[in-house]
């Protein structure tokens, strides 16, 4: 017999605690915590070099483990996350107009800013940097932001403005305290979250991320972007 009021209350309570919405919020916070540790704790409290590299891997691996374990636990397929080709052009069509407008805006802004300078700093012109930044880093960020945060935000608020703004806010705030980068990533977050909800394709988003990053660093002076540094490293 389990029809007493107390039992029913306990079941309600358990249901509330283990609801996917509650869990989705915890998942987003857990991922944000890992990034915050990487950006704000590891660098000031470790020694540059091997120690920093090893310590930096801890929160990165923790975040990756969370995303992979969560994918498994939630029963998500790679295709659902956006690792697919069938909707690449659909995503590209959604991205292109906004990317062109954003590029023109950045170009105009670049001309208006004092000490305008075209071209990325020399360190970013090396093939290794191009590969790592252009492909790997953009994809990793989009995988984290869309394949994880966006999907959990949708569990919380459903498709639409609410979840898109949450994704953009998370993306922008993770670029604290770099003001220019926060604004740019908030706007980028809005666009990419919007497109992902209509055509979830991480490859198109990663490509867009890379191209927009390149246009950003080629148009806006590095003195303002501060080498795209975030967290404690900004100082």
């Amino acid at each position, binding site marked *: 017999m389990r029809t007493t009021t107390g039992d029913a209350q306990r079941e309600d309570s358990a249901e509330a605690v283990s609801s996917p919405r509650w869990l989705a919020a915890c998942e987003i916070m857990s991922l944000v*915590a890992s990034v915050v540790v990487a950006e704000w704790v590891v660098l000031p409290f470790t020694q540059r070099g091997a120690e920093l590299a090893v310590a930096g891997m801890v929160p990165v691996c923790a975040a990756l483990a969370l995303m992979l374990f969560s994918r498994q*636990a939630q029963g998500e397929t790679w295709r659902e996350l956006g690792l697919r080709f069938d909707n690449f052009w659909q995503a590209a069509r959604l991205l292109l107009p906004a990317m062109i407008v954003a590029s023109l805006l950045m170009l105009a802004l670049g001309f208006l800013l004092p000490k305008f300078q075209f071209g990325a700093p020399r360190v970013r012109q090396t093939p290794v940097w191009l590969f790592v930044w252009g492909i790997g880093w953009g994809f990793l960020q989009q995988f984290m932001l869309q394949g994880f945060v966006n999907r959990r935000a949708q569990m919380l608020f459903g498709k639409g403005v609410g979840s898109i703004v949450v994704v953009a806010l998370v993306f922008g705030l993770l670029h604290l305290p770099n003001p220019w980068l926060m604004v740019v990533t908030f706007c980028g977050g809005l666009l990419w979250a919007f497109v992902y909800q209509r055509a979830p394709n991480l490859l198109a988003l990663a490509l867009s991320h890379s191209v927009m990053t390149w246009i950003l660093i080629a148009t806006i002076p590095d003195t303002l972007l501060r080498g795209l540094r975030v967290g404690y490293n900004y100082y």
Partner: protein
Amino acid sequence: MMFDKNLMRKPRSSLVIFIIAKAILETLFVIFLVVSFHYRTFYSRFDGRIDEANGRRVAGWMIAEAEPSKPVEMQLYINDEFAASSIADRPRRSAANVELAQEGAHKFAFDVPPLAAGNYEARVYVVHESGGDDRRTLQALPQPARFRVDAERSEASELNGGFVIKATE
């Protein structure tokens, strides 16, 4: 509030456990980093003493326990204001302190800048570098030294165009 039912699947208790475990491990990791940082940056690895302090000179000895042979930068503060810096790189070789010399004690000496008459407190700090020279902290030698500069002698010295100040301990 509408939420996407297609994305919601049966919650897994293993995911809840994973998130809790991750939070605990990350907290321990942060604590480890902070404690390790504090130990390496602020834990005192120096010993020493001020043997002489007056209006002209502050001198003494110090031992860097971690690297006794390494010359160490030292700074003199008089009444909590920076006065001079020096490198302790001369081994202390005195018959009375053979043991200290063997342990790697180094002598240090500062020329004291001109002081007005009054009472002073001299503190000597060892500049401790950590974090691959990214961080520098000052670690005080255990005992400060107090001395007094005589007013009459100070004024006389200044009138003569110099700063040879009589000091008393």
